[in-house]
């Protein structure tokens, strides 16, 4: 029993096979299955004629992949319409009952397309026996295609010849339509897209200056900010005053002013450096504590500290910019390290810099296999 009963059956728990699909049909609901959004009707009722209990189940079914692929072979003009009548059956708004396709529509679809499936070793969906559908003209209402029926689903591009090809094959550089119409008028502009200057890549206009580079040379994220001299540009191109950069509080709406504020220099004895107010600072070892070493490693995602050293500045070293531990840092629980440091008027008394070596959190090791004696 793979799913719970439809709500109309009044069941939330495991379903009873006796009432899951036969006596119990759901109420009308709007069609949400993208594949079938351009039908001449817009509400459906479940279970459908393939035994699916919901549109979600339909959307991940084998049939909802099979039919769009099969439509491309042009085996039958109304195949997609038939597919949708069994995937998302029409719901009669008066009776709240599903309306089946007519048997002749089913038979025509099967007659034209079953052999195509056979060529690639696939079978016509077992659940879609045409005998279950009423004859046209009988006293049961059934669906037949009319002039309003779209041959292609919304997931398809319709060639000038009338053939359907999958929408993503439109303008992909390969001819898919028999009349080549899927590759006509395929410039970026013609498709409502923006052309990256250095390449033939087209991107959506909404992707320009959105903080994510999409063009190969990142041109879509250039010249997006108009910041003044005392401001820096956030990743999403907002402007934030330099003095607010890396102060432990978010000022860019994407938080990018608080990214990459703390680092350990790889080639210089793992010295701690903090980028604050758009300038790199050394951290003065005065008042440094083991808790701050642990926070540094944790913030960098590197586990726990294994070695902490207060490195004396060599005589004649260049004048450094120092950050000092804030006197009330311990009351700022949960802050990032850069929020616990401050600039002071005086230099570092000890003239020692903080160096921290972190353990790198252990990961990616499987436990050793046990040895069983034979």
């Amino acid at each position, binding site marked *: 029993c793979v799913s719970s009963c439809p709500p109309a059956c009044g069941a939330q728990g495991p379903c009873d096979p006796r009432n899951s699909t036969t006596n119990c049909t759901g109420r009308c609901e709007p069609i949400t299955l*993208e594949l079938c959004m351009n039908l001449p009707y817009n509400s459906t009722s479940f279970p459908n004629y393939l035994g699916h209990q919901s549109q979600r189940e339909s959307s991940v079914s084998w049939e909802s992949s099979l039919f769009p692929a099969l439509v491309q072979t042009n085996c039958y003009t109304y195949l997609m319409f038939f597919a949708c009548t069994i995937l998302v059956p029409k719901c009669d708004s008066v009776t709240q009952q599903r309306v089946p396709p007519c048997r002749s529509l089913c038979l025509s679809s099967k007659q034209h397309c079953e052999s195509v499936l056979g060529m690639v070793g696939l079978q016509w969906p077992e659940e879609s026996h045409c005998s279950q559908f009423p004859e046209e003209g009988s006293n049961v209402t059934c669906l037949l295609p009319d002039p309003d029926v779209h041959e292609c689903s919304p997931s398809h591009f319709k060639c000038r010849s009338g053939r359907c090809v999958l929408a993503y094959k439109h303008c992909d550089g390969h001819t898919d339509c028999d009349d080549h119409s899927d590759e006509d008028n395929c410039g970026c502009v013609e498709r409502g897209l923006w052309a990256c200057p250095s390449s033939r890549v087209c991107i959506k206009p909404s992707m320009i200056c959105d903080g994510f580079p999409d063009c190969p040379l990142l041109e879509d994220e250039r010249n997006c900010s108009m910041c003044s001299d005392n401001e820096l540009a956030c990743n999403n191109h907002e402007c934030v005053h330099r003095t607010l950069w890396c102060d432990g509080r978010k000022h860019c709406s994407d938080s990018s002013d608080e990214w990459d504020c703390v680092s350990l220099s790889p080639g210089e004895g793992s010295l701690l450096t903090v980028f604050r107010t758009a300038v790199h600072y050394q951290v003065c070892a005065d008042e440094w504590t083991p808790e701050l070493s642990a926070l540094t490693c944790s*913030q960098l995602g590197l586990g726990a500290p294994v070695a902490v050293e207060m490195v004396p500045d060599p005589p004649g070293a260049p004048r450094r910019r120092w950050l000092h531990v804030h006197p009330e840092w311990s009351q700022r629980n949960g802050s990032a390290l850069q929020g616990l440091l401050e600039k002071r008027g005086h230099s570092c008394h000890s003239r020692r810099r903080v160096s921290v070596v972190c353990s790198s959190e252990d*990961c990616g090791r499987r*436990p050793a296999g046990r040895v069983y004696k034979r």
Partner: protein
Amino acid sequence: VLGGRVSRPGRWPWQCSLQSEPSGHICGCVLISPRWALTVAHCFEGRESADQWKVVLGITNLDHPSPHRQSSGVTRIIAHPRYSRAVVDYDISVVQLARAVQVTSYVQPVCLPRPGQLPIPDTYCYITGWGHMGNRMPFKLQEGEVRIISLPQCQAYFDTKTITSRMLCAGYEAGTVDSCMGDSGGPLVCEEPSGGRWRLFGLTSWGSVCFSKVLGPGVYSNVTHFTQWIHRQIYLHSFQLN
């Protein structure tokens, strides 16, 4: 996993099961630290609220009690802001666990790739999951060895535009070993040549209809592309920056 085999208990200690009532297991996930896991964004379609999910670790058999089992609620689901439901691009989510799991020999995090580190085409890596086996859903965790397929080769299987740089392909032309429905969000891991450390390069995302005879490789979210984004999400949600 199609064409795989039952895993030995504890062999993949980072594999987790993302569960929601009443269905139980919905997707796979991967532990990357005691408080954080990764999965794919499409697992949360229609069930976006964190409080209806739990993460289960340390198990092999989905419906058997295990002394190594640990579970946690979910505090936060961070889907990639550019996730596209239509083309399954940027299919990744970071999941914050309600409590830190205890690292044991059955529950351990996996390493993320280094910046720019991609798996080498034609090398062999492993996928794992409780997804469909082609004829039935398994109770025991399955593992399968898959070959990494280069981006151009994969684009030839599917379509140039369908396969983006946010995706990785792995498997076989004949589809003999492949991930399937229910494996989504689970790991594609490769062992480093020097010394037994495993890195997470992919998260099971999509592919052809795996239990038909439509062939081809599986498509995985390319974790390398997202490493910086993952680190930033963890950082931003671990410290009080507001």
